């Protein structure tokens, strides 16, 4: 190490804590020049947080980041950019109405005598795109007219216009089809030849050996293995991702009452997110829905709940058909939902807990036309206490509670009604371990009372620990139905991950 030049990027002991959650717990990581270092890990492992620390969007709680052996001031995106660190985010952040050239030079437009120098901008754009072997993209085309892969190339060109030497690619292949991925890989190899170092994040295991030099696996904010050669067999990588099981986090598995179908979904679809889906959920059952982020799980439950208009199909609760695309009717029929993002979809953060809890069941407190505030507050307080919410003071504002307790507030809302079906979308996202255990116990107890529970989760562990059955989704379709008690994480992941080690693409790999 002393003899050779320091690595392009060194991350030492990076820690990031959010209130109640430790996103990163001392991560070490490095990237050399002309190297593609793949970063792998389940959803919520801390990959995004790690790259945000490196790109300066987020300031780590502890640890240091070195670029060319010199410390990088943290939490300053402009500093990272100035040192040649550029990020291509998963959601392309181009302005659709700008032209290609304008997008690339947005914020650092070449100027002459204070005016935009359009000719120069166009010439440099041409040169950058040619460097990426994409001279065919016209500099004056509007970004919105380009295909996703071409937009990605423009994003990369923008990074290069900042003289990037370290490029972070956050799941770049997620939005591309196979042919476009080939295009992307050509660009990556080209940059590699020029000596650019890259962090490549992907869920597609097969890509790692195709494009990477080394691979690091991140789980629960810690590096499980770091710097393995990229040709490590995918099955071994999956084992690293799965890690060890936490013991006794889960209550007794719910036993479905097979003779009592509560929820029935028939051929429900909405292009392009959800392919026709059919299944039933029994009373007392916890039906898990697994798959990767973007596999269409949330879209499917939103269809069931009537938040979107389906293209085809129908939903029945206790044998009665729900009107299509009407959430209020679904709720009246006994559905309830704890959405994926509590803050933006679940709660009114500036409201007190009472009003958050009573929102779906206000009718119960109306006497004549007026709400009886006292009985409303009392009922909310009782429900919050029953769920062991902390604090259980119904006058507190929702925003002041931790993630786990906010989830209990959402849950309390539905327990005020006699729900038949409860849909949980990522029930423990942003929830610490202790509260997780409580939420698992609650879900299990609810099922025991005869409620049909549908649980979307990206955490393989909780799917396996709680579900009676698990449906696995991939690219909008239900691809497998597994028995929660007998399946394991390898089986689940192998259905969820596109192109596993048996896929033909791996064999074509160079």
């Amino acid at each position, binding site marked *: 190490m002393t003899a050779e030049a320091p690595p392009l990027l060194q991350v030492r002991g990076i820690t990031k804590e959010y209130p109640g959650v430790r996103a990163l717990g001392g991560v070490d990581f490095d990237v050399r020049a002309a190297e593609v270092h793949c970063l792998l890990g389940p959803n919520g492992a801390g990959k995004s947080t790690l790259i945000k620390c490196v790109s300066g969007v987020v300031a780590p709680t502890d640890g240091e980041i070195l670029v060319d052996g010199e410390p990088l001031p943290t939490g300053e995106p402009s500093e990272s950019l100035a040192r040649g660190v550029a990020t291509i985010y998963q959601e392309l952040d181009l302005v659709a109405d700008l032209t290609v050239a304008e997008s690339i030079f947005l914020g650092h437009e070449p100027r002459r005598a204070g005016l935009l120098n359009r000719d120069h901008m166009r010439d440099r754009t041409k040169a950058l795109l040619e460097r990426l072997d994409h001279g065919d993209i016209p500099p004056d085309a509007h970004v919105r007219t380009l295909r996703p892969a071409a937009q990605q190339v423009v994003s990369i060109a923008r990074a290069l216009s900042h003289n990037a030497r370290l490029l972070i690619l956050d799941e770049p292949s997620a939005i591309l089809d196979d042919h476009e991925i080939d295009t992307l890989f050509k660009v990556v190899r080209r940059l590699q030849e020029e000596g650019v170092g890259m962090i490549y994040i992907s869920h597609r295991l097969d890509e790692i050996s195709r494009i990477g030099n080394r691979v690091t696996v991140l789980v629960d904010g810690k590096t499980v293995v770091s710097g393995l050669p990229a040709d490590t067999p995918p099955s071994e990588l999956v084992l690293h991702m799965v890690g060890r099981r936490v013991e006794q986090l889960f209550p007794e598995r719910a036993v479905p009452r097979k003779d009592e179908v509560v929820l029935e979904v028939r051929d429900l679809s909405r292009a392009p997110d959800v392919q026709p889906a059919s299944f039933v959920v029994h009373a007392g059952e916890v039906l898990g829905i697994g798959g990767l982020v973007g596999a269409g799980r949330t879209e499917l439950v939103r269809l069931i709940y009537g938040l979107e208009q389906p293209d085809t199909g129908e939903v029945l609760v206790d044998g009665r058909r729900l009107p299509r695309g009407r959430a209020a009717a679904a709720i009246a029929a006994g559905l309830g939902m704890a*959405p994926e993002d509590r803050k933006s979809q679940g709660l009114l953060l500036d409201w007190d807990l009472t009003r958050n809890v009573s929102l779906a069941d206000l009718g119960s407190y*109306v006497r004549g036309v007026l709400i009886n505030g006292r009985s409303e507050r009392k009922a909310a307080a009782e429900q919050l206490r029953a769920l062991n919410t902390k604090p259980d003071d119904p006058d507190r504002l929702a925003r002041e509670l931790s993630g786990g307790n906010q989830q209990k507030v959402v849950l309390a809302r539905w327990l005020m009604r006699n729900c038949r079906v409860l849909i949980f979308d990522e029930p423990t996202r942003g929830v610490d371990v202790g509260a997780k255990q409580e939420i698992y116990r609650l879900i299990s107890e609810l099922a025991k009372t005869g409620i049909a529970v549908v649980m979307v989760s990206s955490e393989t562990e909780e799917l396996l620990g709680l579900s009676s059955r698990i449906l696995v989704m991939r690219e909008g379709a239900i691809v497998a139905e597994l028995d929660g008690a007998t399946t394991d994480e390898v089986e689940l992941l192998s259905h969820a991950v596109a192109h596993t080690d048996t896929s033909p693409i791996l064999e074509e790999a160079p």
Partner: protein
Amino acid sequence: MTAPTAARRRIPALPFGAGRAELQEYALVGVVALLLIAGAILEPDTFLTSDNMLNVLRQASIVGVVAIGMTFVIATAGIDLSVGSMVAAAGVLGGQFADSGSLMFVLGAFAMGVLLGGVNAAAIAYGRVVPFIATLAMFTMARGLALWISDKTPVSIFNLDFVRWFGTGEIVGIPSAIFVFLGVTAIGWMLLNRTRYGRYVVAVGGNREAARIAGVKVQRIIFSVYVLSGICCAIAAILLCGRLSSASPVAGNLLELDAIAAVVIGGTALSGGRATIVGTFLGVLTFALIFNLLTIMNLAVEIQQVTKGVIILVAVLIQRKQN
């Protein structure tokens, strides 16, 4: 959380359970008190007399009624720029029936208010037009309609004693317009704070998606607030026409700005999710007192305008600090 937030939370509930009282309502009570004291000192003979105070309230009643409707609109994170024009159009349509008596005038005014408010509502709730644009369109349409129907001339309604009573009549020495204003305020308060409907209105403004997932029929709620605003405009038209004994197509000019200003300094958040009728009432009162005091002091209109602008800016800055 920070200390100020905690302190705000500890403020006890208002009597008869008004819920959490906002700092801003208290602050505005202070402003109103300050204005009263200042007036009493500057113009001891005229300002703090019961005659003048009733005058202030009567002058406030027209913009006040409109502002109550506007509070509901803004609570859903919307805006209604068309209220001034709707007041004129409602009055003018009522005026067309001046020969058929007061009841027909009132019905005509309400019909116009509901119709125009309904067009706003349909465009915004179901046509998904941004409230600013939809009501801007109505701002010019309703004014044009008022001019068209009336053939650009005010209609005398001097024969309609009942309508005129709303503008000039008194009950036990108190102008009847004040009763209307207080009544609308009280109903608005009940509706917003004590009914399921009011709760849903604020929920839609605070977090539309969360409200939807909790079963609120969001589109319907949004529709309703613009109709409500139209109805308030009809009431205001009756007060205004009664006061002037005529229905003028140019009435209510710039009323939308006064109403929005009163709602905003009252503490209702333009971003939705937080609404206070008491605040709107105090906001209306604040502007009315300033106008009255400066008029008594013989200060020019331009000074009044500057003062009003400064107050709006300061109030909104306070609101931002609070959040």
